[in-house]
């Protein structure tokens, strides 16, 4: 059984937000909300600046505070790929998961349910890549099975330096940033 994850090459990302827009149109995300977003971090004093640009979203963690806190079972781990999903019909919009997520990846959809990135599981199950990965004009995003040592994502993680967001949160995130 696969364990889906993403590897994002921050050396290539230009922060253009194409991933954000592709997600919005693919998934009909309402105006005013995003399931993914860009973070630009810069340090130093002009002109000696170091800067990292990265695209962020739900980390589809292996340890999931958002799932364990959910009172209805709407927030759950999908039986394929370990993807964290929300059953909209079951969700009561109580915001417990919104509070629990250390990455601020969830929001309450205007229709009343918690919403976030699904890794475009509807596409992945058809053999396609997530919309954000497919659109990226810098080819900085990779999606695949972290448990398969021969997958593109595994090979990248073996050959390049990387970090995850909030490693101390204990969530074991499945999105990795190449530096």
């Amino acid at each position, binding site marked *: 059984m696969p364990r889906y994850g993403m590897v994002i*090459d921050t*050396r*290539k990302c*230009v*922060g*253009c*937000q*194409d991933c*954000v*827009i*592709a997600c*919005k*149109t*693919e998934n*009909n*995300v*309402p*105006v*005013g*909300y995003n399931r993914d977003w860009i973070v630009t971090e*810069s340090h*130093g*004093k*002009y*002109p000696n*600046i*170091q*800067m*990292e*640009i990265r695209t962020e979203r739900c980390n589809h963690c292996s340890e999931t505070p958002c799932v364990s806190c959910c009172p209805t079972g709407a927030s759950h781990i999908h039986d394929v790929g370990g993807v964290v999903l929300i059953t909209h019909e*079951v*969700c*009561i*919009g*109580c915001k417990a998961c919104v509070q629990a997520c250390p990455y601020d990846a969830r929001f*309450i959809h*205007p*229709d*009343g*349910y918690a919403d976030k990135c699904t890794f475009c599981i509807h596409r992945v199950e058809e053999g396609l890549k997530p919309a954000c990965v*497919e*659109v*990226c*004009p*810098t*080819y*900085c995003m990779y999606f695949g099975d972290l448990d398969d040592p021969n997958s593109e994502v595994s090979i990248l993680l073996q050959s390049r330096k990387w970090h995850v967001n909030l490693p101390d949160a204990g969530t074991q995130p499945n999105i990795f940033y190449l530096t």
Partner: protein
Amino acid sequence: MNSLSRRKFLKISGATIATAAVLASSAKSIVNAAENVTKKNGLQIIPSYCDLCFWKCGLLAYVKDGKLWKVEGNPKDPLSNGRLCPRGTGGVGAHYDTERLKSPLIRKNLRGEEKWVEVTWNEAFDYIADKMNKMKATYGPEAMALFSHGIGGNFIKHLLRAFGSPNETAPSFAQCRGPREVGFELTFGDVVGSPERTDIENAKCIVLIGSHLGENMHNTQVQEFSHAVEKGASIIVVDPRFSVAASKAKYYLPIKPGTDMALLLAWMSVIVNEKLYDADYISKYGNGFEQFAAEVSQYTPEWAYIETGIDPELIRETAREMVRYKPATLIHPGRHATWYGDDAQRSRAIALLNALMGSWGRKGGFYVPYSYSIPKYPYPSYPELMKEPLDNPNGKYPFATGEQISTGIREATITGQPYPIKGWFIYGTNLMQALPNRDETIKALQNLDLMVVVDVIPSEIAGWADVVLPESVYLERYDDLNASPFREGFVGIRQPAVEEPNDQKPNWWMAKKLGEKLGLGAYFPWKDIEEYLDIRLKLAGHSLTEIKKEGIIKGPKKPIYYDNGVEPEFLTPSGKIEFYSTQLAKAGFDPVPRYTKHPEPPVGYFRLLYGRAPVHTFSKTQSNPILADLMSENEIWVNADLAEKYGMKTGDRIKLKNQDGVISDPIKVRATERIRQDCVYMVHGFGQKSRQLRSTYKKGASDAELVTKYNTDPLMGGTAMNVNFVTFEMEV
């Protein structure tokens, strides 16, 4: 808690509009286009090409249950490689934009008051044709001028030529890439062109001088830049602002604005004095190298340091870095080159630096592009022109060749010399943001008997028109064929995926109907554009039915480098690369570029710089609901220490006042370490003043409004706009 009532409560409390709700608006799909559509799970997928900028990327429009769902890149298209930029991906919003023009309008009150009467297309065409015929009788057909941007203007250009006017221009020359094309043509005998012939993908060293790839999203260039970064290309970025590209660079040169020529000359002196140039290439293809070398050898890095503020050792080191990878060293020519007034000469210096690398015509430098040849439609010949174009009287700007000077036409409209201009036809360009010094534009248009604007939105320039004609957006219409010069020959088609929501019409239809009203029906012999396109394609051995299927037809592959079969050809007077330009010397200009010291901002003022953001194109896309959701206003970048000195924090709203006392709309401060202290920066296209475009009205500030001063390039008439200084007005 009852989940339904909970949801209902949230729905009422949420102050947002769902995209899904917008999707439920009135558009219908084109049913008769079934034969060219791939059907999958009830979806229609229609190939076309984009119009969110001038790059013309191939796309696939997805129509679900008759409604436009999403737009993706066409994998068969060599420009997009199946990946659009954020604007193209958000192109869906152009169709659903609720602020679009919906019907033809005729002005009711004074120009610029934006009071209109809605009219029928027939009434609009009668009004225009009557004015144009009277103008022709009184002043001659050349009194009508066209400002046009984008391929959609082709049929209107044809109409104006059939009418008998030679005056047709676009701001893309004198307000943008003109100096670059002239500088390269003077040197290599050919222009850089669009898409740029830069072989970024194969470059081993890339030098960007003020060119912010990644923030300007020229799709193929950004894709190739990313591949080059991945392959470990050495990147050198010269910019007063620490751009996104700078964050990918091995060397960042924080140059003082206005001094780029000093850096270029110093680089060339290092390369010449240390004899690091490609001697074989230069002896084969160069002309006047000795004179050039003698001239540039004087510009030491120590001299350049005083001008540019760049450490002399860094200048030497980066010069040697470029040499290390030659000829696969690309000193990028940029695109928007109208900066200081000596821009054609600065572009020529960039061309010469590339010539020293031997990169023109070589892999990793500049490839030799070619187009798929599609014959023109066999129209009857145009009427003989009675007068010359008036944009450049007596060749005042002797090297403004090939394209007309938009600001020259504006000038003639003000003065009536050398002959009167009484009509402006404006297609797809917001002159209020594109041309410098807004007052001159307003003064010119007050002299007109007729001003017609064709646009998809009520742009600022549309607000000044007598007649506004609402155009279908690109996803709703056919346009002319696109055969961009590129790495490979191809022809692409734009075809409708959905119908117009209201009474909008395609430009080809407007041109034909207005042509018929003007008695020029013989110039529009085709029944409709499908017949026009089919005839053109059949002349090339193809057909409309064939191209509609995949949206693209590719031609045979040809070599694109001197090293693999392209015969070098330099269409200069010497037939070689002109290191020393005799034609410039003859015309009284510097035959080898020299340094001009440009005025610096007075104390308390800062140079206003402007550029692009990935999600917007000029001032065309700000009302697109998807793109506006990600960027609805611009910010003024201010160095963090400077901001602190003035007591400004990120998020504060201030106004900017320029050297002529013009005050901007309020704009948010972005206090940042990513910019020098002698300049400020904003993204172009905001601070719009069209009252009909409510979502963008005075959102952010307009750099164009603050560009009251401009220097004119004496070689080619380009209007340099980085010469304005602003100060901060805290009281908002």
